[in-house]
Structure formats: structure tokens, C-alpha cells
């Protein structure tokens, strides 16, 4: 029996108004399937619609056309209450964690806050938050610090801890390694893979850096001007890219990736 994708984008379309007369097509018939335990890399140039697709998949933005399905169930017409109940299953880690973490709230409270929807008391929430933070290698001293007192790597781990604390099934990572130095990028990538194996997570890994994307993903979807122009297994994409956009991205890698 064919398995059902845990998260599915079906023919999504999204248009933004730019001024009174012009429009910008952010998504154009974009379809994507994510299966349990897999990592799909979503690559493309800046402005190709990756972040819009991420927000639609995370149910933070409503597409103009098409639908998002979770475990095969179309969720776009769910009531606000049912959507809120669904949200913990799909988590989005934002491009710049410095902006996505409220600077006035301490790290431990930021991680503990999503648990309030389960009706847990403050003490239990903080205990669980501390446990998740320690699993991610965040020292206990960081718990009571504000985001602006943390390093870039620590902030990224707090953002990941905040997503993990609700035990999600799918994590959408929007350029999670942007702004980190190379050793920190490798360290975070390794951590993400360990977490994926430990919790059977599915990832949608968004990046404009094809090199990092192919080293983490099972499949790669290439976006261009709001469309998904190509979607295939990593090896096939590297050996036989079908679209100009994919070839263009491969050409940007110094020395190539064929080996």
C-alpha cells in the first residue's frame, strides 16, 4: 500500500499586490510531498517563493489557490480552533532566529511558552523546556539569558528547542544556517540530523545553498519564479539536472558536486 505524505502542498498559488496596479506571483501551482522521516530540500534563488511556501506549509499564511494536507487531510478550511490544535505538529524555524525570538523574554520562557496550549503549569513547562534545552547542548546558564545575550549558535539552538518541545512531526527550516560561521553551520547540521534520527522527524530544509541542502536531504525540489520546476532524488539531480534553474544552481558551486 502506498504511504500517505505527512505534509503535502497541492497546487498552491499565492499573489501579492505591489502598489495598486502591479502584482507579484509568489507561488504558482507549487506542489510538494514530504514523507515520514524524510528530508526534502527546497532550493532556489532569493525571491523564488521558498519562504512563502514555507509559511503556507506552516499554516501561517493562506494560499490563494490549492490546499495543504496533513496526513492526507485538507486543513485549509479548518476552524481557527482546529488549526491551533494542529500547529504543534508542524513547526517552522525562522530564517533569522534573532528576529523570531522576543528580545524581552528569557530563553527558558521562550522555550516553555508553546507548552501553555497543553494547559501545563509554569513549573512543569519550565522543567520540560530545561530538559529540551539540555538535550540540544545548551548550558544551564543560558536558560535565564535574554536572546540578545546569546551567541548566534545558541539563539539557533533555542529556536530549535522551542520547535522541538512540542514534539512535532514535521519541522520546516527556513535557511536555518544563514548567518552562522562554517564550523557552527556544520555543528547545527549534525545536530539536526541527530534529532531527526532520534525523533523520526520529517524536515523541509529551505536554502539557497545547494551544497548544504544536498548533503542533508533525500530529495531536492528546485523553485524558480514561484514554481517547483524540478523535484527528484539528490543523486539524480546531481547527475542529470532537468531544469535550467537546477543547472544554474549547480554551476554556482565552485568545483562542482559531481564527486
Amino acid at each position, binding site marked *: 500500500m502506498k504511504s500517505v505524505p505527512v505534509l503535502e502542498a497541492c497546487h498552491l498559488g499565492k499573489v501579492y499586490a505591489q502598489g495598486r496596479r502591479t502584482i507579484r506571483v509568489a507561488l504558482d501551482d507549487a506542489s510538494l510531498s514530504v514523507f515520514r522521516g524524510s528530508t526534502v530540500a527546497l532550493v532556489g534563488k532569493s525571491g523564488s517563493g521558498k519562504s512563502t511556501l514555507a509559511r503556507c506549509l506552516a499554516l501561517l499564511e493562506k494560499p490563494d489557490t490549492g490546499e495543504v494536507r496533513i496526513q492526507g487531510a485538507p486543513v485549509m478550511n479548518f476552524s481557527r480552533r482546529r488549526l491551533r490544535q494542529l500547529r504543534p505538529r508542524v513547526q517552522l524555524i525562522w530564517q*533569522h532566529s534573532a528576529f523570531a525570538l522576543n528580545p524581552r523574554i528569557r530563553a527558558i520562557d521562550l522555550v516553555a511558552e508553546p507548552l501553555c*496550549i497543553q494547559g501545563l503549569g509554569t513549573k512543569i513547562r519550565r522543567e520540560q523546556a530545561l530538559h529540551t534545552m539540555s538535550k540540544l547542548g545548551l548550558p544551564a546558564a543560558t536558560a535565564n539569558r535574554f536572546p540578545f545575550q546569546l551567541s548566534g549558535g545558541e539563539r539557533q539552538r533555542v529556536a530549535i528547542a522551542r520547535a522541538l518541545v512540542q514534539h512535532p512531526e514535521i519541522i520546516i527550516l527556513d535557511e536555518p544556517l544563514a548567518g552562522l560561521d562554517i564550523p557552527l553551520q556544520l555543528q547545527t547540521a549534525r545536530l539536526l540530523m541527530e534529532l531527526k534520527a532520534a525523533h523520526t522527524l520529517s524536515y523541509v530544509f529551505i536554502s539557497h545553498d545547494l551544497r548544504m541542502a544536498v548533503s542533508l536531504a533525500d530529495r531536492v525540489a528546485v523553485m524558480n519564479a514561484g514554481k517547483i520546476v524540478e523535484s527528484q532524488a539528490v543523486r539524480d539531480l546531481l547527475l542529470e539536472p532537468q531544469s535550467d534553474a537546477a543547472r544554474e544552481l549547480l554551476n554556482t558551486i565552485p568545483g562542482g558536486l559531481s564527486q
Partner: protein
Amino acid sequence: MNFLARRALHSLLLLVGASVLTFLLVRLAPGDYFESMRVNPQISNRAIASLRSEYGLDKPSPVLYWHWLKSVVKGEGGFSFVYNTAAVPILWPRVQNTLLLAGCATLLAWIIALPVGTLAAARIGSWTDLLASGTIALLLAVPELVLGLLLLLLAVHVGLPAGGMRSPLPAGTGIWNESKDIVGHMFLPALCLAAGLLPLLLSHVRASMREALQSPFVSAALGFGISFRRVLLRHALPAALNPLISLFGLSLGLLISSSLLVEAIFGWPGLGQLMLQAIASRDVFLVIDSTMLGTAFLIAGNFVADLLLYVSDPRIRVG
């Protein structure tokens, strides 16, 4: 603590600087209280010179400033030539009346602006938003003077007190009835003053909240499934606070000086009327004291805003 000590020192220096400048500007203006006596042929020049000498007005400005400063420390605030007594006992009851009126009006404006501005920002394009925009445009277009006169007209038609602060009540009227009488008199001037302040507060609350609600951390919090109400109160409102705290400091600072015109329209016995009289009769120390009170409130308002920012924003407190 460094931040607060620095701000306190800054405020003190500003106050001293403002007092020197005020004193100099008042002294630079030609003539004084006794000069106006020259129009009376029965008073000789010698008598005027002797009066000026008696009250110390012939002394150089630095000496006079020093005497005034000592008098301020003693709680007298100089001497009123018109009332022939220390300035502070004349000023104090008027200041209380002004603070009562301006304080109530400012409180009323904030009580309306905070929830309406927040709701308008949370529901862009809704009826609340349209109502807020309409109110801002309308109140900005109507000058305070016109609004005051319209309210006076309304007072005459509906039988509200149209001037002053108290009605002549018989002796032995209880404190409750006296308070009711003052509130009745204060209603229209406070409404007029609040209407002047409201567009400024409402537009700032709406703009700050709108900006805060568009922050990535607000979207991120909503993405976790946290309720909109909790996100609004715990994330958006604190994020919108900084500009609002500065505005609150300014509104505290304007308590003394914002109501001068409204006091004149409604005959409210506040500092405004006294200041106008003091300027007309060149009662220099009353003019200096009134100006300095306005300045002191403005500086104190800014200091309170700095203090609140220090308490509310960890980036200032810790960073």
C-alpha cells in the same frame, strides 16, 4: 544603576540650565513691575528707584538669580509684587487646580487610546480601525479653541456648568457634594483637553501596535498555536511599549502647560490665568516660577519615561 544615575544627573543639569536661561530672558525684557508706575505723575523717579532698590531689582542679574535660588530652596520661590507675598503660596493652589484638570484629561485620553488603538491595529480595516482613523482626522481638523466654544454652547443647552471650578454652595455642604460640583465643572474642560491629546495618542498606539504585530516573533508565537490574546498581551504590547512610554513621559511633562488655553476658555482657576496676569503686570518671579514649573514637569516626565523604559526593556537594563 549607571543608566539611571546618568539620566538623573542629565535632568538636574538641564533644570539648572533652563532656570539660568529663563531668568536671563525675563531680565532681558525691557522694564519691570515698578517701571509701569512712571505713567503716574504723582510717583517721582526717586520713589521708583528707591522701590526697585528695596526689592533688589537694581542688583545685577547673577546676584538676583542667586537670591531667587536661595528663596526657591527655602520654599518661597521669590516674591510676587502684585500679591505682596512669597510666590509659592500664590502658585500652589493654582498648580493643584491645573494638575487636577490636566491629570484627569490625560488619564481619560490614555484610557480611550490604549484599547481603541490596540483593537484598531489588531483588526486592520475593521469598524474599530475606521472609527479610530475617523476620530483622529476629525479631532486633528478641529482646533481646541473651536471645540472649547462648541462645548460651551453645548453646556448652555444641556445645563452643565459653563465656567469656573465651583458653584457658590451653602456652608456645611458635604465633601461628597463639593466633589460632585467640581467634577461637574471639570467635565467639559477635561473633555476638551482630552480631545486635543487623543489624536496624538491614538495614532501612536495604533502605529506602534501595528508594527509590533508584524514582528517575526509575533508570527512565530502564533505559529506555535499560542492564542492571539496571549500573543497580543505578552508579545505585541510589550514590544509596542517603548515609543508609548516616551509619549507617556511627554504627556506627563505637558500636564502643567497643555491646559493654558482651555483654562482661559472655561475660566478654570489654574496656572494659565495666573501666568497671563503675571506676564501682563511684569511680576517677574511669578513668571519665572510658572515657566520653571512647566520645564520641571517636562524634565520630570522625561525622567519617568527613562525610568519606565529601564524597568520594561531588558536591552536597556541588562545590555
